[in-house]
Each structure stands twice: as structure tokens, then as C-alpha cells.
């Protein structure tokens, strides 16, 4: 499909203006390692990242790990940017992908109803048994009210993101979009989150790094940490 001539070329150029990765105890911002932790478990790492970035958001501690990862990634990604001021809330989208959905908390919920004599399902667990709550946590924190969706795929699928998000921009459904991959099951976690903006809407300042054009190849390379 990628090799067929595209009869609907997008006229606008979309750029990835910032990206963050969390994996193996490390935090990368725009490809540079910002934080390293030797801590083993996802729980410990997420707390450590929360403290390192001096986050102040008590609701963080109620979240499941998938949402904690999404929340922290968005927090680091958006800190110091003017994206939330530049674009109306309803024009900022969040389009994410994930593999395991919310399986960890699915299992936790099911455990709580395993024994008919100790039958106490908890709403604060059940609410986290759908993957789009990670979008909600980001949206609530940063007041992003636009288009949103969670796709599930075994591996990060840059093609789907590129096609769908480009169409959202082409049709003016969004003016800015937070997109990427957030996956967490027990201690296996990986996130790759990036901001997409239209080239025409970005003011070029002296000394600002060159942004990367949104296309499947570039997204793949940034995800894998390869040079563009």
C-alpha cells in the first residue's frame, strides 16, 4: 500500500516538533538522554521520574501504570512548550497506540471477583480496564479537548498514525496533535510520544533545531533511535 501512488497528496507539511521516549530506565527528550534510573520495577521508575521532574499532581498515585507512563511522557513532552497556549483546546488531538490494552488491571479486576466470599470489585480498578483512560488522564491534565483515539497493534505502527493524523490535519480536525505509542504490562514499559504541528504555524527562531517532517520513515527512525 505504501508503494502505490497516493491520489490524495497532502498539501500541508507536518512536522514533529518535539518527542519523548521512556524505556529501560531512561528518559530521552528530542533524542538526548535526560534522566537515567537504575531502579528495576515500573512502579519504582515512574515514582522516580515523577519526583525528578518535580511534578505536582496527587491524582497520579491513583493511576494504573499504563496511565502513569502516558501521563509522565506527556508531562515531559509538553513542559516548556507553548503548544497549549498556541492552539485552541478543541483543536489539539491525542492519537495513541498500544499493544496490551489495559491487561494488567484487567487481571487485577478479575482477581477481585475470583472469590465469591470476598467479592469486592473496586471502581478505581475497573475504571482503568480500558486503554483510552490514558488519553483522558493526559487530556484532563493539559485540557486537550479535541479528536482522540486509541488503536491497538502488536508493534508500534507508524503508518497508521501517519495516515490518520495527516487526514485529521488535512481536514482541519486538528491544528496540533500528540501522538505515539504507550505500552505497559507489568515491568515491560515503553513510550514514544511526539507533537505534530503544521510547518506554516511554527515561527522559526534563531538557534532552534531543525524539525523532522512527519512521514512513516522518520517516525520509525525516531522511535528506534536511528539518525534521520
Amino acid at each position: 500500500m505504501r508503494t502505490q501512488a497516493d491520489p490524495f497528496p497532502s498539501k500541508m507539511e507536518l512536522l514533529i516538533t518535539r518527542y519523548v521516549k521512556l524505556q529501560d530506565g531512561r528518559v530521552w527528550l528530542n533524542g538526548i538522554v535526560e534522566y537515567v534510573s537504575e531502579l528495576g520495577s515500573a512502579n519504582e521508575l515512574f515514582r522516580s521520574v515523577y519526583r525528578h521532574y518535580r511534578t505536582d499532581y496527587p491524582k497520579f498515585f491513583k493511576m494504573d501504570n499504563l496511565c502513569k507512563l502516558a501521563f509522565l511522557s506527556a508531562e515531559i513532552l509538553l513542559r516548556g512548550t507553548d503548544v497549549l497556549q498556541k492552539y485552541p483546546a478543541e483543536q489539539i488531538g491525542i492519537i495513541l497506540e498500544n499493544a496490551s490494552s489495559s491487561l494488567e488491571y484487567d487481571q487485577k479486576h478479575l482477581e477481585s471477583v475470583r472469590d465469591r466470599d470476598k467479592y469486592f470489585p473496586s471502581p478505581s480498578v475497573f475504571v482503568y480496564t480500558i486503554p483510552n483512560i490514558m488519553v483522558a488522564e493526559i487530556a484532563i491534565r493539559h485540557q486537550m479537548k479535541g479528536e482522540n483515539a486509541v488503536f491497538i497493534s502488536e508493534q508500534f505502527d507508524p503508518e497508521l498514525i501517519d495516515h490518520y493524523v495527516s487526514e485529521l490535519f488535512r481536514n482541519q480536525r486538528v491544528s496540533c496533535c500528540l501522538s505515539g505509542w504507550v505500552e505497559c504490562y507489568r515491568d515491560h514499559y515503553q513510550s514514544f510520544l511526539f507533537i505534530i504541528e503544521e510547518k506554516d504555524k511554527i515561527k522559526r527562531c534563531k538557534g532552534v533545531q531543525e524539525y523532522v517532517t512527519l512521514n512513516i520513515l522518520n517516525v520509525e527512525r525516531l522511535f528506534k533511535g536511528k539518525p534521520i
Partner: protein
Amino acid sequence: MIEDLINKLKGEIIRELEMENMTPEELDPEAPLFGEGGLGLDSIDVLELVVLLEQNYGLKIQASKEGREIFYSIRTIAEYIRAHQKE
């Protein structure tokens, strides 16, 4: 003694509602739990308190009908438990 029950409840609430960095001493038993000026608990927290009362005290509550009054403050919760818990 109702004060013992209040102290027990404080610990249970902090644990169940994942109130990180909150100590029992910091929790005012008279303070409103919900709404503006309160501890800022929300609708899921009400339902968690429902589970807490059933699990730890054997009391079943309909959140939508009785929740507002019973869960006004830690003290009102303690008073409800005292009044309704079977010996």
C-alpha cells in the same frame, strides 16, 4: 469510642483512596470530604468508600441516595457505622 473508630477510618481512607503523602494527623475528621474547600474527593472516591464500608464494616450503601450525607466527613462516616453496625 468513636475517636478510635475515626482514627481507624483515617488509616483505611488514606490507604484505599491512595492519598499519597497524607498522614492521619493531617486529616481533619470534621472537614468536608467532597466539593470545593473539601479534600477534593470525587465520584469514584465515593464508590470506593462504599466498597470500604461493605468490606470492612458489612454495611451496604446506595451511593446516589445516601452517599452525600453519610460521606460528608470522616466523623459522619464514623457515626453512621456506629449507628448501623450490628454487634
